[in-house]
């Protein structure tokens, strides 16, 4: 059950369930599903050892489309259920599929605590900056002033940035990708899968019905070189058509500069494995929304014991210390007396 190496070879088709996929035509969810289904055969994992858990929302229908074990649970609660699965069964590979409303609004608490505990979960957060399933209300990642059905005069809420949030919770793995680049998605999902502990991947996902083109300024093919800042471990952070721009850190803040102005030596060299999350956090603050140059890639990937393993170690240690549990001795472990 635990030996991934012996998994039989599969193809993308083996990972697709017989359910008809029912997102709106043109929805970004399709390309994310394809990326996951194409990745799975490459991971050498058995379908029966894989569980997809979701909450509620458009993205949360995802488990129905995977030929694995899966639970479509309650709005916001997927990390809670997934934690129970992962802790009870460290041999399983547990994925959480969630959205910006699901993970960051109603389920914010559970996401934070999964990240803090470092449960062995791979969380894919579909961020479309809108509530799709309930037909178009603003979400916790929608920009302030957004006009929606529930905010006809513009939303008053300040949005938050999922990557900053996760880094603030000291998540051990945080990455960002977008639905227009399958190769990049697959790479991020693979890295997240390989990470032991909680891995969060934010995916900028287009909801073409209620929030069309929300990310177009940065994710369209022609915009990407100018607007996406690729984070690559061990390399200076540069972007632009001719890599003419870069990122420096001053006073603890990250800033975009023209490489020509500062010289390449002053550019920040990205270190995913830096123990302290502050620099990764600074990178996450480079863009406050998908309208200015935005970092994508792995912000942070550090090693920290995962919760399920620690729980198991305590179980093993208890057996070593006290021997395997014996019910009869438990029941007589207090002071006893006999009536004859």
């Amino acid at each position, binding site marked *: *059950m635990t030996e991934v190496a012996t998994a039989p070879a599969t193809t993308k088709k083996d990972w697709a369930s017989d*359910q008809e996929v029912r997102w709106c035509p043109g929805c970004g969810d399709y390309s994310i599903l394809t990326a996951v289904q194409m990745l799975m055969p490459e991971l050498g994992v*058995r*379908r*029966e*050892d*894989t569980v*997809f*858990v979701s909450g*509620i929302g458009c993205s949360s229908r995802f*488990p*129905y489309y*995977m*030929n*694995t*074990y*899966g*639970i*479509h*649970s*309650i709005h916001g*609660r997927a*990390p*809670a*259920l*997934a*934690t*129970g*699965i*992962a*802790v*009870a*069964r460290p*041999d*399983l590979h547990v994925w959480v599929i969630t959205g910006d409303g699901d993970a960051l609004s109603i389920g914010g*608490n*559970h996401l*934070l*605590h999964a990240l803090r505990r470092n449960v062995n979960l791979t969380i894919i957060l579909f961020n479309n900056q809108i509530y799709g399933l309930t037909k178009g209300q603003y979400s916790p990642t929608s920009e302030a002033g957004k006009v929606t059905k529930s905010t006809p005069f513009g939303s008053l809420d300040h949005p938050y940035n999922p990557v900053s949030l996760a880094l603030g919770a000291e998540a051990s793995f945080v990455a960002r990708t977008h639905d227009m680049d399958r190769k990049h998605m697959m790479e991020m999902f693979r890295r997240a899968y390989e990470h032991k502990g909680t891995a969060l991947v934010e995916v900028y996902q287009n909801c073409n019905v209620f929030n069309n083109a929300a990310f177009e300024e940065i994710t369209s093919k022609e915009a990407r070189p100018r607007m996406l800042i690729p984070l690559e471990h061990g390399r200076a952070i540069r972007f632009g058509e001719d890599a003419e721009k870069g990122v420096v850190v001053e006073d603890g803040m990250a800033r975009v500069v023209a490489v020509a102005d500062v010289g390449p030596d002053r550019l920040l060299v990205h270190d995913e494995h830096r123990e302290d999350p502050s620099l990764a956090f600074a990178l996450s603050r480079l863009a406050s929304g998908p309208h200015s140059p935005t970092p994508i890639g792995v912000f942070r990937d550090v090693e920290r014991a995962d919760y399920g393993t620690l*729980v198991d170690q*305590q*179980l093993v*240690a*208890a*057996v070593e210390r*006290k*021997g*395997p*549990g014996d*019910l009869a001795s*438990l*029941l*007589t472990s*207090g*002071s*006893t*007396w*006999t*009536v*004859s």
Partner: protein
Amino acid sequence: MADTASRERPVIDLDRAVIRFAGDSGDGMQLTGDRFTTSSALLGNDLSTLPDFPAEIRAPAGTLAGVSAFQVHISDHDIVTPGDHPNVLVAMNPAALKANIADLAERGTVIVNSDAFDERALAKAGYHDTNPLTDGSLHAYTVYEVPMTSLTLEATKPSGTKPRDAERSKNFFALGLISWLYTRPLEPTLAWIQERFGKTPMVAEANTLAFKAGWNFGETAELFPSHYEVKPAKSLPKGTYTNISGNTAMAWGLVAAGQLAKLPLFLGSYPITPASDILHELSKHKNFGVRTMQAEDEIAGIGAALGASYAGSLGITTTSGPGLDLKTETIGLAVSLELPLLIIDIQRGGPSTGLPTKTEQADLLQALYGRHGEAPVPVVAAATPGDCFYAAIEAARIALKYRTPVIVLSDGYLANGAEPWRIPDISDLPDISVPFATEPNHVGDDGGEEFWPYLRDPETLARPWAIPGTTGLMHRIGGLEKSDGGGAVSYDPANHDLMSRLRVAKVAGIAADIPPVEVDDPDGADVLLLGWGSTYGAIVAGVRRIRAQGRKVAHAHLRHLNPLPPNLGEVVRSYRRVVVPEMNLGQLVKVIRSEYLVDAKGLDKMRGKPFRAEEIEQAVLELFLNRS
């Protein structure tokens, strides 16, 4: 030196005694009561306890709100309640006296710490310009004034403890005195003090000295004309006993359920009074493969437990009223997923934060009906502290066999109360294991083998439990309505009607798998007392009193609240009057009336305290008087 003989006091045999220790919440009264209980248990008395403490960890010192009390009933025969009225009240300060004196038995004994009765303390307790020790208001009682604080300070001097710390040993002085008064052995408590306080030798020494000083004070002060003995209870069934609280019994029952089911336990829980002790107890037993997780909130606690059940553990969550509210949505999901799950609700006074440390039975209707949609859930209740053990196993049996969430109702009184519990022989406990699905169970249209997650067992209507890791049985389930059998998402109206009825039928069908309700009716009464949960002891004691007067009364007690025992309709219809005592405003009575069209009457109490036997007795006697 006075000669020894003159000090010896006669020992008077009592068949039972009720003692209440009362003091400030910082005075250690719960510990004192607990120790007295343990030495009584080791002596072989039957006993029952009632701890009663404020919700605040340290309510304002010296005030009525800050009074913490522990009542214990010890007996040489079988008893079922902590006693209606204490024979002896130990009051460590004026507030403790004021808050408890009204409960004292006629001609009862009051032992006060007279050092604590200064003007300020009296005023704080609401005795303005008067002192109950001198104003004659206690004339109906025997009052012993013992300067416990100063005697404790004196006694503990050799330990080198600072006066301020030494004063804190005065509860041990009180314990020593009462231990002498009831001829309890010294040794178990002395050993316990060493064990508990051994890490801080000075404290252990001070407590030991104070405890002995209390005992010696009783022996030498010639204040007390006699002391008492309550002999071991002979009428108890043969066996090995231990003194157990409801929460410990519940935790042990859960461990046992895991063993009997051959499944690992997973507890997801959030701290809440009065349920937290189950989390504490289960967290100790990791060598039984028990995984406990203190979740970020009540919702995560049950969510993780449900996830663990899906993955093949016995998932459990423990809580009290406010937490049950929060778990409601996940209980609904468990109903829909049809997975085993235990929800342990230790009821407390509500609504909202209510009375966190006081007992109540007002979550019954919530347990039965408190979910949106048609969401039937089996409900099991514990009757006594020791019975929590069996309630846990029975709930697990139902949850596993029928793949359903089950709510177990206990309450603050059972949770913290204790009684001698006859330790069962493990081999007498039921095997509650169920198999996981391992094979496909359906042939598809194309002739291929398929797994249908909602193909039911024709007898139990339970669906197969196929856990991740099982080859060939991959399936997806969720909160959306599922098609009968295949389990795919279905919005078909006829299917929803069918699935709703199937879920209800599955739970209703459990009635055939539970014992019929037994009626205790030796004389052919025409009044039936019908109870559930922790009212058991008070009803049994009330019934004994009524019968002692030559009157006839019947008693039936429900373990299963959903489904109800199959013979209950017949039982309630066969009595002229059905009276339902409950610590709520009439919840079971509503169910009985609507289920069986019987004119049952409620006997309600909402005071945060269990019924007294005399309250049951009086209510029934009034019925007899009013019959015409």
